[in-house]
């Protein structure tokens, strides 16, 4: 199958404006004749559903949460980038575009990234008008900060709860449309399949998580805004229910899955404590502005951290990267922490972390200044660990956090299935091999508010008066049956191990072999381990209860089953990409100094994987070659 990116033939600066004019429109009075399904109500889904409702489409929105306000977008702390250049420090659309392509280690599509940078300012205007209480200066203007090593101040924020406030803005816009009757909202409803008729996405099958009822919903187009798949690692900073199922069901129906191995491991999370740990908590990246990262030089060091004298401490980032020090990008910081822990120099009871020490900052600035900057984070840390970071250094370790890979989409955000769109973290579009800080919120809202509502009109325009597909169409009936049969199968295995046990085991394999460092040997081993574990899952998992009511073990079982398949594809993708780039570090591809070595000659493409028919464990790779007409490729260096 050929990949058509549908990038318009136009100079990048005017491409989106030109293209908006070229695209077909649906007459305002005709929009109500179209049904659009949106799955997921995080930033991307809620903003898309609300905007399409405002435009006049008949929208059905689905979320498995009990309310549209709960999606994991809500947990984003740091901020959202936009090219307002309110401070006159030289920011521009072109600069944000350039930074994003470079930060993604040159593995994203220029046209999409430019558009993202272009609409970023509109997001701030829109959110502010909705009442999002962004931080302000005393004069009443919006405040900004520099974030994630950016050299300009372009990050807008609402305390440490930017994601929460932006999501509530989108949720409230959605609530307004629900009240007006343009959006029909289905909560506690999990999408379990995409339904195609004549090669086009024409609806979905969902399970009501409270009654267990499986129903079909028909539409003219379907939008997936179902987030990322970091939970394939079991322990991640994602919420417990985050999963790949909606995207994976679409993939099984023919949608290409792109760059699955591009995952981001965030350097500053609290290390896992023991086997029972259910998730990892992120500590904001901003801590690295004042904290110094170190490990004891002696792996057998037994003194408490505060008593280890300077000469016995190894500030490994400052030594190795004198120019950037503790502020090296996320992937570099993460990999170096892993090296220290692997060398037996880890700290904490399980020797699985490194220190992030505020001793010098407190001595230099005083405890009050540090409390003002990071007080809420210190409190959160103390609540979880029982340790006081004013007196002893924090312990941190990298944690899976965000997935750049996802469903392949074209310039219109359409997947390889006609009429099926993917927006937000669920698609692969804008971050290449590594996402910059404060760019996830931006992308979710750009897709939902400002891109998809236009491009979907171009698709629908010539479909006016097309026949509706009734939900008793054989394609719906078959899909419903398949969903029910799968649930019955999961319930009937009656094995000995819990779903969580399998999920934990899968997570260990993925973290060991497809995490911060990947090798041919490790990946090959992982693939065979995943297959064996998956077979064991399907013969030995124990799921109690029935399918006719609330049963969270059953929900989890279905999601973990899909994670097994995704995990294998991630390893296959990581194996195929013999270079190191962004968050993907192949040990075979590094410089003499041990840094990631990109290979533009052989790997300057996005990998789009198609499943081979009904055959399990078999995929075909299509490559979307990346052209760089505006950005100059360089090897990143932080020395």
């Amino acid at each position, binding site marked *: 199958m050929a990949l058509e990116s549908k990038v318009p033939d136009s100079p990048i600066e005017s491409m989106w404006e030109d293209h908006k004019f070229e695209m077909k429109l649906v007459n305002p009075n005709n929009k109500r004749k179209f049904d659009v399904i949106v799955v997921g109500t995080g930033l991307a889904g809620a903003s898309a559903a609300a905007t399409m409702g405002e435009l006049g489409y008949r929208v059905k929105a689905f979320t498995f949460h009990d309310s549209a306000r709960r999606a994991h977008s809500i*947990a984003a702390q740091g901020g959202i980038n936009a090219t307002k250049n309110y401070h006159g420090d030289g920011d521009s659309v072109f600069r944000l575009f350039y930074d994003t392509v470079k930060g993604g280690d040159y593995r994203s599509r220029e046209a999409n990234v430019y558009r993202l940078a272009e609409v970023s300012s509109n997001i701030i205007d829109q959110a502010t008008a909705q009442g999002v209480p*962004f931080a302000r200066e*005393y004069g009443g203007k919006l405040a900004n900060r520099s974030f994630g090593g950016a050299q300009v101040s372009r990050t807008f924020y609402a305390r440490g709860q930017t994601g929460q406030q932006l999501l509530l803005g989108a949720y*409230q816009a959605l609530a307004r449309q629900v009240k007006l009757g343009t959006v029909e909202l289905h909560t506690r409803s999990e999408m379990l399949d995409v339904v195609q008729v004549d090669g086009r996405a024409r609806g979905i099958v969902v399970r009501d998580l409270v009654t267990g009822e499986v129903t079909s919903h028909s539409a003219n187009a379907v939008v997936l805004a179902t987030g990322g798949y970091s939970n394939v690692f079991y322990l991640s900073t994602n919420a417990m229910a985050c999963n790949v199922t909606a995207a994976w069901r679409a993939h099984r129906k023919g949608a290409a899955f792109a760059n699955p191995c591009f995952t981001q491991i965030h350097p500053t999370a609290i290390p896992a404590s023991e086997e*029972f740990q259910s998730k990892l908590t992120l500590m904001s990246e901003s801590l690295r502005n004042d904290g110094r990262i170190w490990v004891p030089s002696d792996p057998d060091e037994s003194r408490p951290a505060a008593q280890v004298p300077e000469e016995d401490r190894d500030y490994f980032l400052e030594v190795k990267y004198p120019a950037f020090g503790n502020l090296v990008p996320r992937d570099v910081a993460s990999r170096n922490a892993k090296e220290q822990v692997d060398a037996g120099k880890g700290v904490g009871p399980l020797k699985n972390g490194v220190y992030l020490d505020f001793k010098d900052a407190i001595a230099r600035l005083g405890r009050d200044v540090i409390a003002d900057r990071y007080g809420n984070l210190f409190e959160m840390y103390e609540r979880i660990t029982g340790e006081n970071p004013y007196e002893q250094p924090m312990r941190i370790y990298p944690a899976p956090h965000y997935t750049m890979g996802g469903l392949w989409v074209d310039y219109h955000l359409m997947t390889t299935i006609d009429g099926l769109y993917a927006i937000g973290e669920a698609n692969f579009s804008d971050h290449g091999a590594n996402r910059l800080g404060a760019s996830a919120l931006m992308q979710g809202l750009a897709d939902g508010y400002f891109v998809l509502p236009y491009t979907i009109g171009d698709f629908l325009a010539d479909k006016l008066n097309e026949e509706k597909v009734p939900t008793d169409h054989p394609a719906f009936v078959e899909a419903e049956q398949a969903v029910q049969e799968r649930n019955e199968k999961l319930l009937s295995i009656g094995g000995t191990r819990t779903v969580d046990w399998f999920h934990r085991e899968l997570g260990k394999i993925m973290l060991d072999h497809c995490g911060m460092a990947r090798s041919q040997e490790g990946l090959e081993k992982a693939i065979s381990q995943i297959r064996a574990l998956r077979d064991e899952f399907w013969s030995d998992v124990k799921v109690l209860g029935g399918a006719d009511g609330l049963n969270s073990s059953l929900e989890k079982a279905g999601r973990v089953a899909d994670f097994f398949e995704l995990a294998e594809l991630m390893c296959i993708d990581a194996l195929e990409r013999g270079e190191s780039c962004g968050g993907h570090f192949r040990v075979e591809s590094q410089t003499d100094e041990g840094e990631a070595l990109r290979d533009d000659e052989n790997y300057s493409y996005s990998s789009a994987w198609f499943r081979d028919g009904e055959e399990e464990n078999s995929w075909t790779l299509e490559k979307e070659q990346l052209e760089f007409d505006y950005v100059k490729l360089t090897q990143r260096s932080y020395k």
Partner: protein
Amino acid sequence: MNLTLRVWRQTGPDDVGGFETYEAEGISEHMSFLEMLDTVNERLIEDGVEPIEFAHDCREGICGTCGLMIDGQAHGPWDGAATCQLHMRAYSDGDEIVIEPWRASGFPIVKDLVVDRQAFDRIVEAGGYISIDTGSANDANLTPIGKETADLAMDAAACIGCGACVAACPNGAAQLFTAAKAEHLNLLPQGQPERDQRSMAMVDTMEEFFGSCTNHQECSSACPKDISIDFIGMLNRDYAKAKLSGRKSA
């Protein structure tokens, strides 16, 4: 440590429900409260007993999904923390812990410890927004908003919609939630055109589902985000003003 749990089990909204006793053995003080429940659930499954259903998601105190009455306190003994942020350090070996769902007629029980909080969404749908279509906004810096105003609006906007305020209230009232949602917008310049309408519609909708406020202040002491009851005062003012403004002679 070893603990005894008395947990509310109820198969559905129509079931009477009752307490079951479970022994939670070998619990680490490093566990979060929900990880303790995970551990108990895994053992129940191994023993062939259906696990306890409880609502949870982000496990970092921001999504507002979790919420348990623990020994009669909404979100348990720690101040300013959601259930997911409570850790087992708060307990000692031999403790008995009583775990119940939110108890309020506005929150019907779905199963075990899971309740239905859709009434909160109805309150927001009634007017908890600013009517502005996508694409029609002015430049964000066109309307200056003083830092103190923005900070106060943010204090209200920090509400996570968990429902602890309702569960803690002897009247099952939702004043703190409604006030936080309304005043976040009523305090901002953008929120002024719809201020009267919003205040009336949200309060009227609230009263369809929840009890009345009699100033016990349990709500704000249970709130995991420490939202102040001052916002209730502000909403009362806005509501009275909205009802009385434009009143005509009888």
